[in-house]
């Protein structure tokens, strides 16, 4: 280890992007809070606009901030060590996302193994079942809640299976794109990355289609359809949001590649986007098993 490596650690000069980002986040929070409050009280207010303005400001901030970073990187200000910082930062960020999903998967497993059986009188809860919810029988998927809301369940065959295949394939194509980049085969890189993006978009399309089936009169599977509908929509919904974000990242990478960015040695941003993509893929597999199949 030479000291040279350390001398070149780049500490950026003052930046106005973070404070803009802080203001944007403030607008999003206040906007969203007002918005949901208005929905609940059936009143109207400015919340939605503030929310949109905040999101707009975040996008502006991200462009500006990343532009700075990209310029610094392209002009060779970053050392190998800086690259490491980014990589480690991204991996811990993904880990925090894993824990966010863990909370929802935890909730799913808890209701399935404890809450629902207990409501049906399992364990030492015979009285709970008999006195509070005499009509209720515990099942999973929970198609009839204790208070009598009925719904139907989403099978794993059909759209979910197709989506699984799409997303798994896209993880492989993303990997091929990465290999092409490392071997400096630019045309293959563009092709594989393009395919990955298309697969991701197809996934999102089918997901929307599946939701529209769920919300149809036949299925009557709503967000409000008891704990089955809750966990179904919250898990697939948050996953879908992450796929959307992943797609946006990949598309940005695609344009940067068209502009000639990234070299076989230095391509942190691409790497981060592809890690993120593998992460949403893994979450989907777990989701497919626990939400759809089992």
């Amino acid at each position, binding site marked *: 280890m030479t000291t040279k490596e*350390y001398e*070149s650690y780049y500490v950026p*000069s*003052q930046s106005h992007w973070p404070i803009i980002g802080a203001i944007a986040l403030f607008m999003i929070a206040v906007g969203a809070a007002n918005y949901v409050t208005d929905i609940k009280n059936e009143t109207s207010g400015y919340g939605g606009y503030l929310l949109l303005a905040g999101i707009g400001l975040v996008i502006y901030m991200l462009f500006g901030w990343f532009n700075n970073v990209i310029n610094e990187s392209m002009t060779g200000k970053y050392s190998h060590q800086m690259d490491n*910082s980014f990589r480690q930062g991204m991996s811990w960020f993904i880990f925090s996302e894993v824990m966010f999903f863990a*909370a929802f998967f935890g909730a799913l497993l808890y*209701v399935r193994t404890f809450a629902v059986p207990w409501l049906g009188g399992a364990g030492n809860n015979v009285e709970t079942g008999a006195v509070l919810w005499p009509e209720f029988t515990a099942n999973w998927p929970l198609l009839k809640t204790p208070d009598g809301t009925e719904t139907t369940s989403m099978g794993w065959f059909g759209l979910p299976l197709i989506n699984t295949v799409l997303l798994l394939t896209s993880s492989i194509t993303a990997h091929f794109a990465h290999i092409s980049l490392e071997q400096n085969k630019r045309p293959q890189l563009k092709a594989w990355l393009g395919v990955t993006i298309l697969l991701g978009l197809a996934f999102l399309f089918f997901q929307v289609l599946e939701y529209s089936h769920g919300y149809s009169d036949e299925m009557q599977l709503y967000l409000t359809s008891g704990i089955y509908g809750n966990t179904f929509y919250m898990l697939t919904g948050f996953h879908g949001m992450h796929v959307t974000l992943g797609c946006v990242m990949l598309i940005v990478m695609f344009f940067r590649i068209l502009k000639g960015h990234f070299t076989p040695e230095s391509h942190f941003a691409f790497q981060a986007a592809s890690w993120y993509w593998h992460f949403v893929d893994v979450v989907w597999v777990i989701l497919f098993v626990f939400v759809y199949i089992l």
Partner: protein
Amino acid sequence: MTINTINESLDDAATDDHHDHKMTGIKRWLYTTNHKDIGTLYLWFAFIMLLTGGALAMVIRAELFQPGLQIVEPDFFNQLTTVHGLIMVFGAIMPAFTGFANWMLPMMIGAPDMALPRMNNWSFWILPFAFAILLSSFFMESGAPNFGWTFYAPLSTTYSNGSTAFFVFAVHIMGISSIMGAINIVVTIMNLRAPGMTYMKMPLFVWTFFITAYLLIAVMPVLGGVVTMLLTDTYFGTSFFDAAGGGDPVMFQHIFWFFGHPEVYIMILPAFGIVSTIIPAFARKKLFGYSSMVYATASIALLSFIVWAHHMFTTGMPLFGELFFMYCTMLIAVPTGVKVFNWVATMWRGSMTFETPMLFSIAFVILFTIGGFSGLMLALTPVDFQYHDTYFVVAHFHYVLVTGSLFSIYAGAYFWLPKWTGHMYSETLARWHFWCSLISVNLLFFPMHFLGLAGMPRRIPDYALQFADFNKWVSIGGFAFGLSQLMFLAVVIKCIKGGKKAPAKPWDGAEGLEWTVESPAPYHTFSTPPKVD
């Protein structure tokens, strides 16, 4: 580290890009990427929040001075306890520690700055906005959140008031801030240590912040998840915490405490780090059992993930659960005991002097241990049925958090004030602060143990007559403690304005890279890394 290739394409110009000029005025603070500036911001923010949360506590104690309702309505009383707790946990203790991390970590490991300086700025500046949102709910029609800092469902869902959405989004921002701050700490420590500083050569302070940061990354997202479920339950008709839809209100507690228990260690591990730095300095001996301290910290952190349900003994868990969580909780007392033993062993036969940082540290060791013992009592399932939700619990967590975490923060502040400001603080005034705080804090919290054992419930604005005498003394202690903290403000302001010039190393037993640079520490330290061997 195995990097031995130098990226040749790097031009040396990169080094010259360091901004030696600071911006002036407000822009310096808004745009800063400097870890010392950001550390200062965190510390001042934490202190302002401490005074804000303290003001709420003064109203609480005024109401509880006598039995009967005198000053506030019960609902407003609940808002006070709720916001007091939230502010102290997320606004005072946690940001204060992040402030220490920002100021000290780069200097202690010989790094030029935090690894991701712009993100560092962002993590700080979103915090004041989060608390602005939370505090603004006091001025809303519905009033502030009133369901306790633990926001149990269904109090926070079915029966919550109109400001719940504001609470939820404020907590989201606090969570984002903590996660980003923690990622920065982890990356800085993993990646920016000076050559030769291996993990087992890091100061213990660095270790404790390292492990705390991992805890934060692991549990803050879970807090985000649980407030999200609360939001959809309250506003979008889901029933995660509603048995009628197949959910379970007790599930709320499981998810919350899965976050919540590691959270209490997030608030104490850095305190261990600070105290483990100060005691050797004033005992003029090396820290006793450095590596056992590292392993103890790590095992406390790991165990903290499997003890959460000790907060839920009375919820009717299956017997196996009660026993499992009881034994695991008692197990944590072992590594904690190792720490206390090591602190005492460090002082044993040391040539001790008792400057204010040392006074606060010794008080920490004794009073934190009292808090640990009451924790152990609470960990016994059968007796917790008696203690749960009484003032005994309040006494327990104030001993660990006020005389534990907060005292360590004061100890650390006095210890490093000379480094931060370049001046010595007034030892006389500081001692006044210490002794007034020490006496009043015990008057404030010690009688709470007895109130709790006698059955006084927590979070109630009124109480039965037999509790009146003790509550009067507790309130007097509370007011005195609150006022004493203003002395700290005076010491700090005096110290910033002037005072005896501090040498590079004002404490002769102190060790560490931060003492090799002049006082006040220059705006940029270690642009070239020091050699550690």
